Protein backbone atom coordinates (compact mmCIF):
# COMPACT_ATOMS: atom_id res chain seq x y z
CA UNK A 1 0.00 0.00 0.00
CA UNK A 2 1.19 3.45 -0.85
CA UNK A 3 1.95 5.20 2.42
CA UNK A 4 3.11 8.41 0.83
CA UNK A 5 1.15 11.33 2.23
CA UNK A 6 3.39 14.07 0.91
CA UNK A 7 1.25 15.11 -2.10
CA UNK A 8 -1.64 15.84 0.28
CA UNK A 9 0.60 17.92 2.49
CA UNK A 10 2.30 19.97 -0.18
CA UNK A 11 -0.25 22.82 -0.49
CA UNK A 12 -0.33 23.44 3.26
CA UNK A 13 3.43 23.10 3.61
CA UNK A 14 3.98 25.54 0.76
CA UNK A 15 1.57 27.97 2.40
CA UNK A 16 3.25 27.64 5.80
CA UNK A 17 6.69 28.18 4.29
CA UNK A 18 6.01 30.90 1.72
CA UNK A 19 3.11 32.54 3.52
CA UNK A 20 4.29 32.31 7.10
CA UNK A 21 7.94 31.44 7.69
CA UNK A 22 9.38 33.58 4.90
CA UNK A 23 7.48 36.73 5.96
CA UNK A 24 8.54 36.20 9.58
CA UNK A 25 12.16 35.77 8.50
CA UNK A 26 11.88 38.94 6.43
CA UNK A 27 10.49 40.76 9.44
CA UNK A 28 13.54 39.59 11.38
CA UNK A 29 15.87 40.86 8.65
CA UNK A 30 14.01 44.15 8.52
CA UNK A 31 14.50 44.66 12.24
CA UNK A 32 18.26 44.26 11.77
CA UNK A 33 18.89 46.85 9.06
CA UNK A 34 18.71 50.64 9.09
CA UNK A 35 16.69 52.75 6.67
CA UNK A 36 19.59 52.71 4.17
CA UNK A 37 19.70 48.91 4.26
CA UNK A 38 22.97 48.23 6.06
CA UNK A 39 23.00 45.80 9.00
CA UNK A 40 22.69 47.29 12.45
CA UNK A 41 21.44 46.54 15.93
CA UNK A 42 20.37 50.15 16.36
CA UNK A 43 16.64 49.40 16.10
CA UNK A 44 16.83 47.17 19.15
CA UNK A 45 19.27 49.45 20.93
CA UNK A 46 16.89 52.37 20.44
CA UNK A 47 13.99 50.23 21.58
CA UNK A 48 15.67 49.44 24.88
CA UNK A 49 17.29 52.85 25.35
CA UNK A 50 14.09 54.88 24.96
CA UNK A 51 12.33 54.98 28.35
CA UNK A 52 8.95 55.44 26.65
CA UNK A 53 9.29 52.37 24.44
CA UNK A 54 10.73 50.40 27.32
CA UNK A 55 7.70 51.27 29.43
CA UNK A 56 5.42 50.20 26.57
CA UNK A 57 7.20 46.83 26.50
CA UNK A 58 7.07 46.35 30.25
CA UNK A 59 3.42 47.46 30.41
CA UNK A 60 2.45 45.01 27.65
CA UNK A 61 4.14 42.03 29.29
CA UNK A 62 2.74 43.13 32.64
CA UNK A 63 -0.74 43.37 31.15
CA UNK A 64 -0.40 39.81 29.83
CA UNK A 65 0.73 38.54 33.23
CA UNK A 66 -2.05 40.33 35.13
CA UNK A 67 -4.72 39.03 32.75
CA UNK A 68 -3.34 35.48 33.05
CA UNK A 69 -3.45 35.75 36.86
CA UNK A 70 -6.99 37.14 37.05
CA UNK A 71 -8.26 34.68 34.43
CA UNK A 72 -6.82 31.78 36.43
CA UNK A 73 -8.51 32.91 39.64
CA UNK A 74 -11.87 33.22 37.88
CA UNK A 75 -11.52 30.03 35.84
CA UNK A 76 -10.75 27.79 38.81
CA UNK A 77 -14.23 27.77 40.39
CA UNK A 78 -15.79 27.35 36.92
CA UNK A 79 -13.80 24.22 36.09
CA UNK A 80 -14.41 22.82 39.59
CA UNK A 81 -18.12 23.41 39.11
CA UNK A 82 -17.78 21.48 35.84
CA UNK A 83 -15.91 18.69 37.62
CA UNK A 84 -18.63 18.20 40.23
CA UNK A 85 -21.54 18.63 37.80
CA UNK A 86 -23.64 15.90 36.23
CA UNK A 87 -23.70 15.29 32.47
CA UNK A 88 -26.58 17.69 31.80
CA UNK A 89 -25.07 20.51 33.84
CA UNK A 90 -21.71 19.89 32.18
CA UNK A 91 -23.27 20.52 28.77
CA UNK A 92 -24.81 23.74 30.07
CA UNK A 93 -21.41 24.92 31.30
CA UNK A 94 -19.80 24.15 27.94
CA UNK A 95 -22.62 26.04 26.21
CA UNK A 96 -22.16 29.05 28.48
CA UNK A 97 -18.40 28.99 27.80
CA UNK A 98 -18.75 28.70 24.04
CA UNK A 99 -21.29 31.52 23.82
CA UNK A 100 -18.92 34.31 24.88
CA UNK A 101 -15.97 32.66 23.14
CA UNK A 102 -17.72 32.65 19.78
CA UNK A 103 -19.09 36.16 20.23
CA UNK A 104 -16.93 38.69 18.41
CA UNK A 105 -14.23 40.41 20.49
CA UNK A 106 -15.42 43.79 19.27
CA UNK A 107 -18.97 42.98 20.40
CA UNK A 108 -17.77 41.97 23.85
CA UNK A 109 -15.58 45.05 24.08
CA UNK A 110 -18.59 47.16 23.14
CA UNK A 111 -20.70 45.47 25.82
CA UNK A 112 -18.05 46.40 28.39
CA UNK A 113 -18.25 50.03 27.30
CA UNK A 114 -21.95 49.84 28.15
CA UNK A 115 -21.26 48.12 31.48
CA UNK A 116 -18.43 50.40 32.62
CA UNK A 117 -19.62 53.60 30.94
CA UNK A 118 -20.93 56.69 32.71
CA UNK A 119 -24.56 55.63 32.28
CA UNK A 120 -23.87 51.94 32.84
CA UNK A 121 -25.07 49.65 35.64
CA UNK A 122 -21.84 49.77 37.68
CA UNK A 123 -21.66 53.57 37.73
CA UNK A 124 -25.39 53.82 38.60
CA UNK A 125 -25.06 51.28 41.41
CA UNK A 126 -22.10 53.20 42.83
CA UNK A 127 -24.17 56.38 42.88
CA UNK A 128 -27.10 54.58 44.52
CA UNK A 129 -24.81 53.15 47.18
CA UNK A 130 -23.28 56.55 47.79
CA UNK A 131 -19.73 55.73 46.65
CA UNK A 132 -19.81 58.14 43.70
CA UNK A 133 -21.29 61.66 44.09
CA UNK A 134 -22.24 61.64 40.40
CA UNK A 135 -22.26 59.03 37.62
CA UNK A 136 -18.84 58.61 36.05
CA UNK A 137 -17.10 56.37 33.57
CA UNK A 138 -14.94 53.55 34.89
CA UNK A 139 -13.22 53.10 31.54
CA UNK A 140 -9.76 54.19 30.40
CA UNK A 141 -7.55 52.70 33.08
CA UNK A 142 -5.48 49.57 33.37
CA UNK A 143 -7.67 47.89 35.99
CA UNK A 144 -10.69 48.10 33.71
CA UNK A 145 -8.63 46.75 30.84
CA UNK A 146 -7.40 43.77 32.89
CA UNK A 147 -10.96 42.92 33.99
CA UNK A 148 -12.33 43.20 30.44
CA UNK A 149 -9.51 41.16 28.91
CA UNK A 150 -9.95 38.52 31.63
CA UNK A 151 -13.61 38.16 30.62
CA UNK A 152 -12.70 38.03 26.94
CA UNK A 153 -9.91 35.47 27.36
CA UNK A 154 -11.62 33.38 30.08
CA UNK A 155 -13.09 30.72 27.71
CA UNK A 156 -9.61 30.11 26.27
CA UNK A 157 -8.48 28.92 29.70
CA UNK A 158 -11.71 27.17 30.74
CA UNK A 159 -12.07 25.04 27.59
CA UNK A 160 -8.62 23.37 27.57
CA UNK A 161 -9.00 22.50 31.26
CA UNK A 162 -12.50 21.10 30.65
CA UNK A 163 -11.07 19.05 27.77
CA UNK A 164 -8.50 17.51 30.12
CA UNK A 165 -11.18 16.80 32.74
CA UNK A 166 -13.47 15.09 30.25
CA UNK A 167 -10.66 12.69 29.34
CA UNK A 168 -9.81 11.75 32.92
CA UNK A 169 -12.01 9.66 35.20
CA UNK A 170 -12.94 10.59 38.71
CA UNK A 171 -11.90 7.36 40.40
CA UNK A 172 -8.64 8.76 41.75
CA UNK A 173 -10.36 11.73 43.37
CA UNK A 174 -13.10 9.45 44.68
CA UNK A 175 -10.49 7.06 46.09
CA UNK A 176 -8.69 9.92 47.81
CA UNK A 177 -11.97 11.11 49.33
CA UNK A 178 -12.77 7.59 50.53
CA UNK A 179 -9.36 7.38 52.16
CA UNK A 180 -10.18 10.52 54.10
CA UNK A 181 -8.75 13.41 52.06
CA UNK A 182 -10.84 16.56 52.42
CA UNK A 183 -12.01 18.41 49.30
CA UNK A 184 -9.22 21.00 49.48
CA UNK A 185 -6.64 18.22 49.77
CA UNK A 186 -8.19 16.43 46.78
CA UNK A 187 -8.06 19.71 44.88
CA UNK A 188 -4.40 20.40 45.60
CA UNK A 189 -3.00 16.87 45.34
CA UNK A 190 -5.16 15.33 42.61
CA UNK A 191 -7.29 17.80 40.65
CA UNK A 192 -4.71 20.56 40.14
CA UNK A 193 -1.96 18.21 38.86
CA UNK A 194 -4.55 16.59 36.61
CA UNK A 195 -5.66 19.97 35.21
CA UNK A 196 -2.10 21.29 34.83
CA UNK A 197 -1.61 20.48 31.11
CA UNK A 198 -4.89 22.23 30.29
CA UNK A 199 -4.02 25.21 32.48
CA UNK A 200 -0.62 25.61 30.80
CA UNK A 201 -2.16 25.36 27.33
CA UNK A 202 -4.76 27.96 28.34
CA UNK A 203 -2.16 30.33 29.80
CA UNK A 204 -0.32 30.48 26.48
CA UNK A 205 -3.53 31.36 24.62
CA UNK A 206 -4.61 33.93 27.22
CA UNK A 207 -1.20 35.61 27.29
CA UNK A 208 -0.97 35.77 23.49
CA UNK A 209 -4.54 37.07 23.25
CA UNK A 210 -4.25 39.70 25.98
CA UNK A 211 -0.96 41.17 24.77
CA UNK A 212 -2.12 41.54 21.15
CA UNK A 213 -5.76 42.58 21.41
CA UNK A 214 -5.51 45.87 19.56
CA UNK A 215 -9.19 46.85 19.64
CA UNK A 216 -9.84 46.08 23.31
CA UNK A 217 -6.63 47.77 24.41
CA UNK A 218 -7.43 50.89 22.39
CA UNK A 219 -11.10 51.16 23.34
CA UNK A 220 -11.05 50.14 27.01
CA UNK A 221 -7.55 51.40 27.84
CA UNK A 222 -8.14 54.71 26.10
CA UNK A 223 -5.67 56.90 24.27
CA UNK A 224 -3.31 57.41 27.19
CA UNK A 225 -2.44 53.73 27.68
CA UNK A 226 -0.12 52.56 24.91
CA UNK A 227 0.72 48.88 24.48
CA UNK A 228 2.88 47.18 21.87
CA UNK A 229 0.12 46.63 19.28
CA UNK A 230 -0.76 50.33 19.25
CA UNK A 231 2.94 51.22 19.23
CA UNK A 232 3.67 48.90 16.27
CA UNK A 233 0.66 50.17 14.37
CA UNK A 234 1.58 53.78 15.01
CA UNK A 235 5.16 53.26 13.88
CA UNK A 236 3.93 51.73 10.61
CA UNK A 237 0.69 53.50 9.87
CA UNK A 238 1.52 57.00 11.06
CA UNK A 239 5.30 57.39 11.21
CA UNK A 240 6.30 54.86 8.49
CA UNK A 241 9.13 53.79 10.75
CA UNK A 242 9.37 50.20 9.47
CA UNK A 243 12.62 49.05 11.13
CA UNK A 244 11.47 50.25 14.53
CA UNK A 245 8.05 48.58 14.09
CA UNK A 246 9.72 45.36 12.98
CA UNK A 247 12.00 45.37 16.02
CA UNK A 248 9.07 46.01 18.38
CA UNK A 249 7.06 43.23 16.72
CA UNK A 250 9.99 40.89 17.09
CA UNK A 251 10.29 41.66 20.78
CA UNK A 252 6.59 40.84 21.17
CA UNK A 253 7.17 37.61 19.25
CA UNK A 254 10.20 36.74 21.36
CA UNK A 255 8.37 37.47 24.63
CA UNK A 256 5.41 35.29 23.60
CA UNK A 257 7.73 32.52 22.39
CA UNK A 258 9.67 32.52 25.66
CA UNK A 259 6.44 32.22 27.63
CA UNK A 260 5.28 29.44 25.32
CA UNK A 261 8.54 27.50 25.46
CA UNK A 262 8.60 27.77 29.24
CA UNK A 263 5.03 26.46 29.39
CA UNK A 264 5.79 23.62 26.99
CA UNK A 265 8.87 22.67 28.99
CA UNK A 266 6.79 22.79 32.17
CA UNK A 267 4.11 20.57 30.64
CA UNK A 268 6.79 17.92 29.90
CA UNK A 269 7.70 17.90 33.59
CA UNK A 270 6.52 14.53 34.94
CA UNK A 271 4.57 16.02 37.84
CA UNK A 272 2.70 18.38 35.53
CA UNK A 273 2.27 16.08 32.55
CA UNK A 274 -1.03 14.68 33.69
CA UNK A 275 0.16 11.45 35.28
CA UNK A 276 -2.14 11.94 38.24
Amino acid sequence: MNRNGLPFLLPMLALSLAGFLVPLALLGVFSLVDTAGSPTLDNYRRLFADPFILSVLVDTLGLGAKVVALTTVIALPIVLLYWHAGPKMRRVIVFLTLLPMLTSNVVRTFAWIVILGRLGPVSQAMVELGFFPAPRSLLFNETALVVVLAQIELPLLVLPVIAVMTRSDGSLAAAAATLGAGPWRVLSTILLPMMAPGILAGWVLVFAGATTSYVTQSVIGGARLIYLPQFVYREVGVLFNWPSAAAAAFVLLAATSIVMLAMTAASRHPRLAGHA
Partner: protein
Amino acid sequence: MLDGNRPLDWAYRLFVYGLGGLAIAFMVAPVAVGLAMSFTAGQTLKFPPDGLSLRWYSALLDPEQSGPIHTAILHSAQIAVLTVLGAVLVAAPAAYGVTRLKPAASAAVEPLMLAPLVLPSLVYGLAALIASGRVGLSPSFGLVVFGHIVVFGPLMYRSCAAITQRLDPSLEEASALLGMGPFRTFLRVTLPLMLPGILAGMFLVFMQSLDNVSVTLFLADARTTVLPLRMFQMIEESLDVRVAAISGVLIGAVLLCLIVSWKALEPKRQG
Protein backbone atom coordinates in the same frame (compact mmCIF):
# COMPACT_ATOMS: atom_id res chain seq x y z
CA MET B 1 -18.69 12.99 45.19
CA LEU B 2 -18.48 16.08 47.33
CA ASP B 3 -19.91 14.71 50.53
CA GLY B 4 -18.58 11.17 50.77
CA ASN B 5 -18.91 10.05 54.34
CA ARG B 6 -17.34 13.10 55.83
CA PRO B 7 -18.99 16.24 57.12
CA LEU B 8 -19.65 18.80 54.40
CA ASP B 9 -16.88 21.23 53.83
CA TRP B 10 -18.89 24.42 53.59
CA ALA B 11 -15.99 26.58 52.53
CA TYR B 12 -15.31 24.30 49.59
CA ARG B 13 -18.97 24.16 48.61
CA LEU B 14 -19.21 27.92 48.77
CA PHE B 15 -16.06 28.22 46.66
CA VAL B 16 -17.26 25.82 43.97
CA TYR B 17 -20.97 26.62 43.80
CA GLY B 18 -20.99 30.24 44.97
CA LEU B 19 -17.91 31.56 43.21
CA GLY B 20 -18.38 29.16 40.28
CA GLY B 21 -21.83 30.56 39.65
CA LEU B 22 -20.58 34.14 39.97
CA ALA B 23 -17.66 33.44 37.63
CA ILE B 24 -19.96 31.99 34.99
CA ALA B 25 -22.22 35.04 35.36
CA PHE B 26 -19.15 37.28 34.86
CA MET B 27 -18.23 35.31 31.74
CA VAL B 28 -21.71 35.46 30.17
CA ALA B 29 -23.11 38.79 31.41
CA PRO B 30 -21.46 40.99 28.75
CA VAL B 31 -23.08 38.91 26.02
CA ALA B 32 -26.48 39.36 27.66
CA VAL B 33 -25.84 43.09 28.10
CA GLY B 34 -24.84 43.42 24.44
CA LEU B 35 -28.01 41.68 23.34
CA ALA B 36 -30.28 43.69 25.68
CA MET B 37 -28.64 46.99 24.72
CA SER B 38 -29.54 46.44 21.06
CA PHE B 39 -33.24 46.81 21.91
CA THR B 40 -32.91 50.20 23.60
CA ALA B 41 -35.34 52.96 22.74
CA GLY B 42 -32.91 55.65 23.89
CA GLN B 43 -30.22 57.71 22.14
CA THR B 44 -27.48 56.76 24.59
CA LEU B 45 -25.82 53.66 25.96
CA LYS B 46 -27.76 53.98 29.24
CA PHE B 47 -28.14 50.54 30.79
CA PRO B 48 -30.60 49.22 31.76
CA PRO B 49 -32.36 51.05 28.89
CA ASP B 50 -35.39 53.25 29.64
CA GLY B 51 -37.51 51.60 27.00
CA LEU B 52 -37.42 48.90 24.38
CA SER B 53 -37.68 49.32 20.62
CA LEU B 54 -36.34 48.02 17.35
CA ARG B 55 -35.32 51.51 16.15
CA TRP B 56 -31.59 50.76 15.99
CA TYR B 57 -32.24 47.62 14.00
CA SER B 58 -34.25 49.60 11.48
CA ALA B 59 -31.54 52.28 11.42
CA LEU B 60 -29.05 49.50 10.73
CA LEU B 61 -31.18 48.12 7.90
CA ASP B 62 -31.75 51.52 6.28
CA PRO B 63 -29.46 51.61 3.22
CA GLU B 64 -29.36 55.42 3.18
CA GLN B 65 -28.00 55.79 6.71
CA SER B 66 -26.03 52.59 6.99
CA GLY B 67 -24.64 52.04 3.50
CA PRO B 68 -20.98 51.97 4.67
CA ILE B 69 -21.88 49.39 7.34
CA HIS B 70 -23.57 47.20 4.71
CA THR B 71 -20.44 47.39 2.54
CA ALA B 72 -18.28 46.41 5.51
CA ILE B 73 -20.58 43.47 6.32
CA LEU B 74 -20.44 42.35 2.70
CA HIS B 75 -16.63 42.53 2.62
CA SER B 76 -16.30 40.68 5.91
CA ALA B 77 -18.67 37.94 4.75
CA GLN B 78 -16.85 37.59 1.41
CA ILE B 79 -13.47 37.41 3.14
CA ALA B 80 -14.77 34.85 5.65
CA VAL B 81 -16.33 32.63 2.95
CA LEU B 82 -13.20 32.71 0.77
CA THR B 83 -11.03 32.02 3.81
CA VAL B 84 -13.17 29.02 4.74
CA LEU B 85 -12.92 27.66 1.17
CA GLY B 86 -9.17 28.19 1.08
CA ALA B 87 -8.73 26.60 4.50
CA VAL B 88 -10.73 23.50 3.46
CA LEU B 89 -8.77 23.08 0.23
CA VAL B 90 -5.38 23.42 1.92
CA ALA B 91 -5.83 22.02 5.43
CA ALA B 92 -8.22 19.08 5.01
CA PRO B 93 -5.90 17.16 2.63
CA ALA B 94 -2.95 18.01 4.89
CA ALA B 95 -4.71 16.53 7.93
CA TYR B 96 -5.14 13.34 5.89
CA GLY B 97 -1.63 13.34 4.43
CA VAL B 98 0.00 13.70 7.83
CA THR B 99 -1.42 10.33 8.96
CA ARG B 100 0.34 8.71 5.99
CA LEU B 101 3.78 9.98 6.99
CA LYS B 102 6.33 8.25 9.18
CA PRO B 103 5.92 9.41 12.81
CA ALA B 104 9.23 11.28 12.73
CA ALA B 105 8.20 13.18 9.60
CA SER B 106 4.78 14.14 10.92
CA ALA B 107 6.34 15.28 14.21
CA ALA B 108 8.55 17.57 12.13
CA VAL B 109 5.90 19.14 9.91
CA GLU B 110 3.04 19.48 12.43
CA PRO B 111 4.53 22.27 14.55
CA LEU B 112 5.29 24.21 11.37
CA MET B 113 1.70 23.94 10.17
CA LEU B 114 0.24 24.78 13.60
CA ALA B 115 2.63 27.66 14.34
CA PRO B 116 0.34 30.46 13.06
CA LEU B 117 -2.20 29.50 15.76
CA VAL B 118 0.00 30.42 18.69
CA LEU B 119 2.08 33.29 17.35
CA PRO B 120 0.59 36.75 17.84
CA SER B 121 -1.31 37.45 14.63
CA LEU B 122 -0.42 41.12 14.87
CA VAL B 123 3.23 40.24 14.32
CA TYR B 124 2.19 38.13 11.36
CA GLY B 125 0.15 41.00 9.92
CA LEU B 126 3.19 43.25 9.92
CA ALA B 127 5.43 40.48 8.52
CA ALA B 128 2.97 39.74 5.72
CA LEU B 129 2.74 43.43 4.86
CA ILE B 130 6.54 43.74 4.61
CA ALA B 131 6.88 40.50 2.60
CA SER B 132 4.09 41.36 0.16
CA GLY B 133 5.62 44.79 -0.37
CA ARG B 134 8.89 43.06 -1.30
CA VAL B 135 7.21 41.10 -4.09
CA GLY B 136 5.42 44.20 -5.32
CA LEU B 137 1.96 43.62 -3.82
CA SER B 138 0.18 46.41 -2.05
CA PRO B 139 -2.58 45.90 0.54
CA SER B 140 -5.76 44.60 -1.06
CA PHE B 141 -8.83 42.43 -0.59
CA GLY B 142 -6.97 39.40 -1.96
CA LEU B 143 -4.07 39.90 0.43
CA VAL B 144 -6.45 39.95 3.40
CA VAL B 145 -7.94 36.63 2.27
CA PHE B 146 -4.45 35.16 1.85
CA GLY B 147 -3.41 36.33 5.32
CA HIS B 148 -6.57 34.90 6.88
CA ILE B 149 -6.00 31.53 5.20
CA VAL B 150 -2.45 31.41 6.58
CA VAL B 151 -3.52 32.34 10.10
CA PHE B 152 -6.79 30.36 10.35
CA GLY B 153 -5.97 27.40 8.08
CA PRO B 154 -4.35 25.66 11.07
CA LEU B 155 -7.71 25.77 12.91
CA MET B 156 -9.18 23.71 10.08
CA TYR B 157 -6.14 21.44 10.13
CA ARG B 158 -6.47 20.79 13.87
CA SER B 159 -10.18 20.19 13.64
CA CYS B 160 -9.71 17.66 10.78
CA ALA B 161 -6.62 16.03 12.29
CA ALA B 162 -8.62 15.24 15.43
CA ILE B 163 -10.62 12.88 13.20
CA THR B 164 -8.00 11.56 10.76
CA GLN B 165 -5.72 10.51 13.60
CA ARG B 166 -8.45 8.23 14.95
CA LEU B 167 -9.52 6.76 11.59
CA ASP B 168 -9.38 2.99 11.22
CA PRO B 169 -6.59 2.27 8.67
CA SER B 170 -8.31 -0.96 7.63
CA LEU B 171 -10.97 1.08 5.80
CA GLU B 172 -8.33 2.56 3.54
CA GLU B 173 -6.60 -0.77 3.15
CA ALA B 174 -9.88 -2.31 2.06
CA SER B 175 -10.32 0.48 -0.45
CA ALA B 176 -6.78 -0.04 -1.76
CA LEU B 177 -7.33 -3.80 -2.03
CA LEU B 178 -10.40 -3.10 -4.11
CA GLY B 179 -8.15 -1.25 -6.53
CA MET B 180 -8.71 2.41 -5.65
CA GLY B 181 -5.71 4.71 -5.78
CA PRO B 182 -4.82 7.03 -2.91
CA PHE B 183 -6.64 10.03 -4.34
CA ARG B 184 -9.87 8.15 -4.99
CA THR B 185 -9.60 6.55 -1.57
CA PHE B 186 -9.26 10.02 -0.08
CA LEU B 187 -12.27 11.36 -1.98
CA ARG B 188 -14.57 8.38 -1.56
CA VAL B 189 -13.62 6.95 1.84
CA THR B 190 -11.67 9.36 3.99
CA LEU B 191 -13.27 12.66 3.09
CA PRO B 192 -16.83 11.57 4.04
CA LEU B 193 -15.48 10.33 7.38
CA MET B 194 -13.76 13.66 7.95
CA LEU B 195 -16.93 15.66 7.33
CA PRO B 196 -17.74 16.44 11.00
CA GLY B 197 -14.22 17.81 11.48
CA ILE B 198 -14.45 19.85 8.30
CA LEU B 199 -17.81 21.33 9.34
CA ALA B 200 -16.55 22.21 12.82
CA GLY B 201 -13.43 23.73 11.25
CA MET B 202 -15.52 25.74 8.76
CA PHE B 203 -17.54 27.21 11.61
CA LEU B 204 -14.43 28.13 13.65
CA VAL B 205 -12.56 29.60 10.67
CA PHE B 206 -15.60 31.60 9.58
CA MET B 207 -16.11 33.11 13.04
CA GLN B 208 -12.42 33.90 13.50
CA SER B 209 -12.08 35.48 10.07
CA LEU B 210 -15.20 37.56 10.63
CA ASP B 211 -13.79 38.87 13.91
CA ASN B 212 -10.17 39.38 12.92
CA VAL B 213 -8.64 42.82 13.29
CA SER B 214 -4.91 42.40 13.70
CA VAL B 215 -4.21 40.80 10.31
CA THR B 216 -6.77 42.86 8.39
CA LEU B 217 -5.43 46.07 9.93
CA PHE B 218 -2.15 45.66 8.03
CA LEU B 219 -3.24 43.93 4.83
CA ALA B 220 -6.45 45.78 3.86
CA ASP B 221 -6.43 48.77 1.51
CA ALA B 222 -8.63 51.79 2.19
CA ARG B 223 -11.52 50.43 0.09
CA THR B 224 -11.61 47.06 1.85
CA THR B 225 -13.53 48.13 4.94
CA VAL B 226 -14.43 45.23 7.23
CA LEU B 227 -17.06 44.91 9.93
CA PRO B 228 -14.93 44.70 13.11
CA LEU B 229 -12.83 47.69 12.07
CA ARG B 230 -15.92 49.63 11.02
CA MET B 231 -17.45 48.92 14.46
CA PHE B 232 -14.18 49.95 16.09
CA GLN B 233 -14.29 53.28 14.23
CA MET B 234 -17.94 53.82 15.15
CA ILE B 235 -17.14 53.16 18.82
CA GLU B 236 -14.12 55.46 18.81
CA GLU B 237 -15.84 58.29 16.95
CA SER B 238 -19.30 58.61 18.38
CA LEU B 239 -20.46 55.63 20.48
CA ASP B 240 -23.06 55.08 17.76
CA VAL B 241 -25.94 52.97 19.14
CA ARG B 242 -26.14 51.14 15.80
CA VAL B 243 -23.10 49.21 17.06
CA ALA B 244 -25.50 47.72 19.61
CA ALA B 245 -27.78 46.55 16.81
CA ILE B 246 -24.83 44.97 14.95
CA SER B 247 -23.85 43.30 18.21
CA GLY B 248 -27.40 42.02 18.61
CA VAL B 249 -27.30 40.46 15.14
CA LEU B 250 -23.91 38.82 15.73
CA ILE B 251 -24.88 37.48 19.17
CA GLY B 252 -28.15 36.17 17.72
CA ALA B 253 -26.24 34.33 14.99
CA VAL B 254 -23.90 32.69 17.49
CA LEU B 255 -26.82 31.72 19.73
CA LEU B 256 -28.64 30.18 16.77
CA CYS B 257 -25.57 28.13 15.72
CA LEU B 258 -24.98 26.96 19.29
CA ILE B 259 -28.60 25.95 19.84
CA VAL B 260 -28.69 24.06 16.52
CA SER B 261 -25.50 22.16 17.38
CA TRP B 262 -26.77 21.58 20.93
CA LYS B 263 -29.89 19.92 19.51
CA ALA B 264 -27.87 17.97 16.93
CA LEU B 265 -25.48 16.64 19.57
CA GLU B 266 -28.17 15.81 22.14
CA PRO B 267 -27.54 12.31 23.52
CA LYS B 268 -30.20 9.96 22.19
CA ARG B 269 -32.39 8.35 24.85
CA GLN B 270 -32.38 4.58 24.83
CA GLY B 271 -35.91 3.54 23.92
